[in-house]
């Protein structure tokens, strides 16, 4: 049998270290290009936004600052061009916006096609979005995982005394999947003829979950050799192990950034799922007529916490300040408060409305009401309804529509409260409400690098509140055992979000 030997001429070309001499390209450096027509660049505000966007992207590719504290490129430079990119001899990251997508491609001279690609939905705000470290970290993770190296080994992440690869959790890591459990550390060679990479593994590192808080540590099975030139890191699981997850997270973050930027200051209890937190306060006064009811007012504080894993958690605290009048049969009065927590499940829809949401709620109600009411015999009595800390369950449904700086929400809610711990006479509360909220986006302030948005709230609601006494004792006169109050209120308020 005669065999032709495949004859691979494996003249290996070693990726140089940062100590590369003048003639050798620095393989730990990447040039970042924004490529588009003059119109595209102008529409995206490239002059204003690209320097910061590029800086955020480049930083997310750096060791220590990238995903899970890893990154392949120690240095980067930024270019914006309106011609096909004049790519350099090193690594290049090309950002290409088109009508529907912004594509990111990592190329290396000599290779006919990109070594890594990712993309996200294009909007006029794409470059602004690229300043967000959570987005750039996700994009960097998706790109780096496709490359022959996820990270370079650099002194800032290599701890020879342990020995370990260790990095702090960065702010941008928020939406990343769990860090790789095992890493390969290797030197890397490229066969320029075949464009095949050859790895020489020098150590394996295993992540210890119990490592220090806010730090990711992979312990090495041996110290790294000093004579191997630049060493590189990759997930033992291989390339692109998180690609699907990362793509999904990129879409989520882009959607959130878009909504945050375009919705009226956002934050509102209306829209739910965006930004990081929202706090608002508002005041409303009754427009109903009738004894005491015409004087009822409502002061509310609303808060919504956003960001995983508490995205959608809401708190409502409503106070009806005490109002009272002196009447012939005794003072009539009305006061109460309710503290309710809810969780918003929202879903974007098309058509007339942008979003629908459902908010299951649980909380505590306190009511103290006394009215002069006629009993079954027509005799007017001063009747008291009182409950303290009644356990409340409720469900709210809402639909939203955004129109430029205005957001409109129609909602309806039914709440039921009782106090199961009290024996004997118990006052039950059934509260059916419906209303319309409007939110107008106001000015934004930048405080310590964070956008603080101010919004104006206008709202109206109708409350149908039934209080019923049950389980009376023998001595108690309960011939008047229920009261129903119908109150319409209108009001306004202010909200801030960050």
């Amino acid at each position, binding site marked *: *049998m005669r065999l032709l030997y495949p*004859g691979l001429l494996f003249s290996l070309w070693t990726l140089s270290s940062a100590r590369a001499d003048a003639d050798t390209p620095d393989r730990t450096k990447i040039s970042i290009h924004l490529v588009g027509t003059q119109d595209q660049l102008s529409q995206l505000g490239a002059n204003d936004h690209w320097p910061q966007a590029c800086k955020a992207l480049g930083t997310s590719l750096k060791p220590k600052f990238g995903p899970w504290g890893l990154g392949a490129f120690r240095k980067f430079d930024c270019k914006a061009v309106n011609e096909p990119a004049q790519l350099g001899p090193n690594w290049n990251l090309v950002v290409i916006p088109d009508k529907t997508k912004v594509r990111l491609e990592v190329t290396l001279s000599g290779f006919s096609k990109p070594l890594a690609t990712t993309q996200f939905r294009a909007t006029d705000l794409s470059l602004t979005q690229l300043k967000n470290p959570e987005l750039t970290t996700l994009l960097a993770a998706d790109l780096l995982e496709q490359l022959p190296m996820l990270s370079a080994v650099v002194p800032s992440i290599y701890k020879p005394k342990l020995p370990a690869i260790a990095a702090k959790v960065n702010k941008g890591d928020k939406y990343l999947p769990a860090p790789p459990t095992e890493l390969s550390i290797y030197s890397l060679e490229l066969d320029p003829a075949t464009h*095949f*990479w*050859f*790895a020489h593994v020098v150590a394996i590192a295993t992540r210890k979950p119990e490592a220090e808080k806010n730090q990711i540590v992979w312990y090495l099975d041996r110290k790294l050799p000093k004579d191997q030139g630049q060493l590189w890191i990759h997930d033992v699981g291989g*390339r692109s192990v998180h690609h699907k997850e990362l793509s999904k997270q990129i879409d989520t973050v882009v959607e959130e950034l878009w909504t945050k930027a375009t919705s009226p200051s956002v934050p509102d209890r209306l829209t739910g799922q965006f930004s990081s937190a929202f706090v608002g306060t508002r005041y409303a006064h009754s427009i109903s007529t009738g004894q005491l009811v015409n004087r009822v007012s409502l002061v509310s504080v609303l808060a919504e916490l956003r960001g995983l894993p508490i995205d959608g958690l809401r708190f409502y605290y409503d106070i009806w300040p005490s109002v009272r009048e002196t009447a012939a049969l005794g003072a009539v009065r009305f006061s109460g408060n309710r503290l309710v927590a809810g969780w918003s499940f929202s879903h974007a829809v098309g058509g007339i409305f942008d979003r629908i949401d459902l908010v299951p709620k649980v909380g505590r109600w306190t009511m103290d009401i006394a009215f002069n009411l006629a009993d079954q015999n027509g005799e007017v009595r001063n009747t008291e309804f009182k409950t303290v800390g009644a356990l409340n369950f409720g469900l709210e449904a809402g639909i939203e529509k955004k129109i430029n700086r205005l957001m409109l929400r129609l909602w309806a809610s039914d709440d039921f409260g009782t106090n199961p711990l009290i024996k004997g006479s118990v006052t039950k509360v059934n509260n059916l409400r419906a209303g319309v909220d409007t939110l107008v986006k106001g000015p934004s302030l930048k405080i310590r690098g964070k956008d603080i948005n101010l919004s104006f709230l206008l709202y109206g609601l109708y409350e149908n509140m039934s209080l019923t006494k049950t389980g009376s004792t023998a001595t108690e006169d309960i011939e008047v055992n229920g009261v129903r109050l119908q109150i319409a209120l209108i009001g306004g308020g202010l909200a801030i979000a960050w």
Partner: protein
Amino acid sequence: MLLLGKLILLGYLASLPANAAPNAAINSWVQQAKANPAYKKAVFPRKIVLIDEIVSQQTPTFMELDVSNFNMLSFVATIPRNDARQTLQINDPPKSGSDEESRIYSALTLLGSDLMIIGKYDGKPWRIVGLYKNKPIVIAKSPAPQGGGTNQNALVKWLLRNLGYDAVVIGVNKDRILVGGRADQLTANIKGVVLRRSADTLKMAMPPEESLVSIQKVSSEGAFAEFRIINNDANDEEDTENAGTKTLVPVGSKVIFPDVH
């Protein structure tokens, strides 16, 4: 008593082999030979990879063998398991497809390996696979070596026995030839035969082709040895004239040591 101790020490030192020091001349010749284009073009196994599962969900799984000393036992080197796995993971496979042929082709090509040994500890024969005209072919199929690969020396012997030769000519200088073989064979004072028409053949047919020249070992260092051509068996149609004058033994020719078979 002290004198007796000194005598014993002297006796021990005298008993050490005279060539225990590294043979710098051979090491130097090996380096030169490896840089020679003829060495790079020659057909013989320089690098092998040991695999126990080629068709799997992800990358092939590699034999969990300690091959740390393997490269010193013969002229054949193995690709460490971690290197092989990582290399396959960071490259796009040259041939897409999850069938065995595509995977073997991709692995051999990416790793720059001449041969792949595929075997498990399951009692089935092991296969030696190489590429022929860009297609994987089974070069030999044989019961697993003694120790199932854990005995590195047995694994080397098994490989070369299945390929049908003991050593390979890796350099030629007049009547001297440099041979890569098995370290345990080359320590002996041996004679060998360079096989005719064997330079571009990975596996030799049995019985072997007729001899081109006979050779006698001069010195050795590990898995490499210098031999002297002691008689020229070639006829006129070969590129060989008489020994000591003009002998063209092609690099890559296969060598057998009849006395140690």
